[in-house]
């Protein structure tokens, strides 16, 4: 043992602090700087920009719309996603093993594609429709997190409540036990719904309008002022109400987090007993099919029809479809490859940065989860502008990377980091500290401990986080437009192609993009036989 070795009792925090510093410098500070700057329009202190927040009736109504739409869409997502998860995890639903993972598939298509497909089929419009479609598009978050919550409850706890208080109380107990997970899912749905302006706008073309606040924010950026101008300051300040809404939701989630000990992987654990559905089997099966039908079958079907020329007046033909796909493959395969590559790098970056942050969040610093949520809570355009200002500053070395994919990967990585931090922190919380301690006592170094102990145990969650970061990067449009290397990203091109009336090529591209998004899920199923939805 030799002489005296003096060391801090808390080793391993240096990596964390370094990563946190980089995250704060590259993502949080630029945003804070933007907000700070909004108090100094035209170079001097003024609250003018902030005074104009919600100053008009229109914006107030839009914010109200946002809140109502956010709430209703979240409710739909919880009902459909959470309901499907409950059926597949808790009951003897036929095909539960297949239907569970299928509840994740709506993530494969961007919400606007789901919306356009729906509009192809129905003239229904208005708030409930927008809420339903946004709910369907984001229900996978609710499904995955509800499934995770249900899997982490010890069946004996449920059974003891069942014996003591009856069925209803037992189910209520279950609900309370996985409330934190359900609310975490709801929070994610809410964040994504509140920042979406494309779908509400798409459906407001017909009579009843439901414009939302995110559109007001977006409109402010559509006539941007020079950096430092009052107009630019107003654009920044205008996102504050959305942040406030999300902050409120986050507060509720954090309060609901279970105080008791979590089920750890080493615990003596019994899964929840399955309930027999009896006569309810058929209705339950139909219910569980809603999400895959609306979220994947409908858009896939409509996009295939688009590729076959359904939007033109000539009718559809197989030849048109083949030609559409041929054009995409010959003209856009390079962009498609670039897009999938960028998304994969972004997913990887999310995992790498989230790991040390999540580890500390789980062990000692739960505030990191709230901090990491900021880049997702602000409108995409705001994050994009913040990144442009930082990475294009000629005095900083980052400017050399401005025009490279590194900026895009960093942008996506930052935006979707909270999903990684939330999921991995939850997974890390389930690893007893004694796992690492046992390895430390063996005299093993930190690298080997990560490789042999924590790494393999967090791997399923890390893979899920990677897949989520990858898929969400394929749906992100705002950053792809603002950040220069986003130019060749397919979602941006898809929006353009459809806008300029090339729906046949657009349909084929949307289908191929969805297939590309499904690649890692398919690979995972092939390799492990599991979709890993409860690993989030």
């Amino acid at each position, binding site marked *: *043992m030799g002489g005296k*070795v*003096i060391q801090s009792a808390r080793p391993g925090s240096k990596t964390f602090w370094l990563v946190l510093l980089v995250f704060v410098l590259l993502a949080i500070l630029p945003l804070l700087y933007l907000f700070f700057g909004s108090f100094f329009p035209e170079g001097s202190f003024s609250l003018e920009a902030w005074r104009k927040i919600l100053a008009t009736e229109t914006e107030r109504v839009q914010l109200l719309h946002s809140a109502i739409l956010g709430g209703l869409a979240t409710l739909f997502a919880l009902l459909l996603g959470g309901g499907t998860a409950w059926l597949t995890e808790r009951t003897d639903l036929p095909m539960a093993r297949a239907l569970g993972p299928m509840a994740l598939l709506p993530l494969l298509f961007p919400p606007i594609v789901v919306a356009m497909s729906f509009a192809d089929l129905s003239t229904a419009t208005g708030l409930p429709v927008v809420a339903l479609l946004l709910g369907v598009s984001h229900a996978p978050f609710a499904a995955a997190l509800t499934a995770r919550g249900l899997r982490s409850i010890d069946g004996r706890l449920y059974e003891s409540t069942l014996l003591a208080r009856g069925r209803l109380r037992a189910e209520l107990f279950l609900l309370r036990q996985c409330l934190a997970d359900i609310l975490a899912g709801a929070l994610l749905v809410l964040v994504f719904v509140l920042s979406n302006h494309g779908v509400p706008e798409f459906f407001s073309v017909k009579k009843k309008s439901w414009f939302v606040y995110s559109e007001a924010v977006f409109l402010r950026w559509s006539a941007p002022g020079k950096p430092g101008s009052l107009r630019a300051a107003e654009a920044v300040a205008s996102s504050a109400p959305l942040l406030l809404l999300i902050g409120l939701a986050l507060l509720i989630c954090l309060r609901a987090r279970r105080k008791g000990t979590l089920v750890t992987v080493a615990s003596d654990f019994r899964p929840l007993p399955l309930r027999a559905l009896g006569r309810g089997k058929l209705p339950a099966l139909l219910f569980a099919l809603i999400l895959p039908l609306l979220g994947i079958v409908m858009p896939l079907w409509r996009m295939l029809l688009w590729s076959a020329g359904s939007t033109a007046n000539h009718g559809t033909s197989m030849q048109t479809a083949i030609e559409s796909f041929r054009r995409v493959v010959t003209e856009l395969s390079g962009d498609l490859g670039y897009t999938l590559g960028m998304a994969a790098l972004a997913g990887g970056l999310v995992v790498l940065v989230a790991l040390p942050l999540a580890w500390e969040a789980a062990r000692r610093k739960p505030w990191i989860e709230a901090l990491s949520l900021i880049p997702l809570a602000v409108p995409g355009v705001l994050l994009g502008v913040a990144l442009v200002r930082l990475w294009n500053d000629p005095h900083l070395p980052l400017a050399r990377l401005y025009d490279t994919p590194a900026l895009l990967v960093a942008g996506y990585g930052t935006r979707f980091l909270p999903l990684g931090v939330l999921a991995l922190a939850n997974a890390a919380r389930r690893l007893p500290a004694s796992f690492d*301690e*046992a390895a430390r*006592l*063996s*005299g093993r170094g930190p690298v080997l401990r990560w490789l*042999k102990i924590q790494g393999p145990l967090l791997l399923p969650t890390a893979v899920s986080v990677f897949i989520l970061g990858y898929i969400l990067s394929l749906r992100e449009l705002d950053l792809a437009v603002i950040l220069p290397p986003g130019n060749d990203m397919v979602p941006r091109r898809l929006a353009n192609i459809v806008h300029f009336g090339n729906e046949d090529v657009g349909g084929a591209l949307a289908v191929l993009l969805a297939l590309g998004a499904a690649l890692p899920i398919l690979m995972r199923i092939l390799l492990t036989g599991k979709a890993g939805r409860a690993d989030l």
Partner: protein
Amino acid sequence: MTLRISELRFARKAFELGPIDLEAQGGRMLVLIGPSGGGKTTLLRLIAGLEAASGGSITLGDDLLTGPGTFVPAAARRVGFVFQGLALWPHMKALAQVRFAGKCGKKEATELLLRAGLPASLHKRLPGALSGGEAQRLAVARALAGHPRLLLLDEPLRSVDPHLRDGLQRTLRALAREGEHPTLCVTHDREEALALADDLVVLAGGRILERGRPSELCREPRHAFTARFLLRADILPLQGTGPKRGCALGSFSVPDWLQGEAALALRPGDLRIHQGDHSQSQPKAAPEAGPLPATPLPASTRPATPTTTAFPTKTLLAPVLDRHFDERGCLLDIEIEGQPFSLLLRPGEPIPDPGMQVRVGLDRTPLVVQADGGSE
């Protein structure tokens, strides 16, 4: 190899541990007993280097592990630790766990597993595929891998079925005596403590209450907690402050060493039912039978201090609350001064029904102990 702990302190939020002074000899098993939350696990973690002490020192052999300005990291202490709940890595097979922990080859790991009593057919299994006892043996083997200079066991038999405990206890005793390393085990289970311990330390409220050989502590516990814990005694407070103090059962001399409040520690066999009138009984001077272990007790290392006292005692009427059986016979729950007490019926005695009143009195010299609240 000797482990020496001196003036060790630890504080976190409302919890305080120490000052602790302790010495554990190589080749012997020192068992720390006490209630949950008493600081047992924290003490083990401080020794292992998993927590940093706020004062005091820990020395193993000639090496200072923890002391002013010194903190040897856990990884460098060469300490084997069997965690409460075992902390077996769920994704690693039994043999791989031992190899990873001990940085050793397959042969050595296999031998260790066999020594810990895990048959070769189970070496390729994941922890989830092992029974409680098998997992326990794996945890012990893993802790012994890498030739630790100290072995720490935290509630080692907690997840083991009762009928498998004997075998494991034998293994643990053998392993503790085999090497030169001291073994520290913490538990809140008296059977386990008595079965494993060469030396016993009672820890409660973050402090050591008393220590000694198991036989001494069972024969002459000084503290109400020890009597309750080891002898299943019920405690009846004694009133007054002088050398003679009284209660419903009479008046008793208090030993010189006892400072502060005193109490009677009443083992189930100390009380008996008196038939007939209210006259005082003449109890026997020494116990005939009791809950003490049947094994011959080793020579005491404690100074001989009288804890028993001669008496004439009173009898009193006590309502029967309940009755039940265990390996000692039929036990009555009776009420004295508003508290439940256990009374062991003698063979052949009629068994009163709950709700009846019985006249009870002492049958043998009771133990006078320090009431709860003090420490060593």
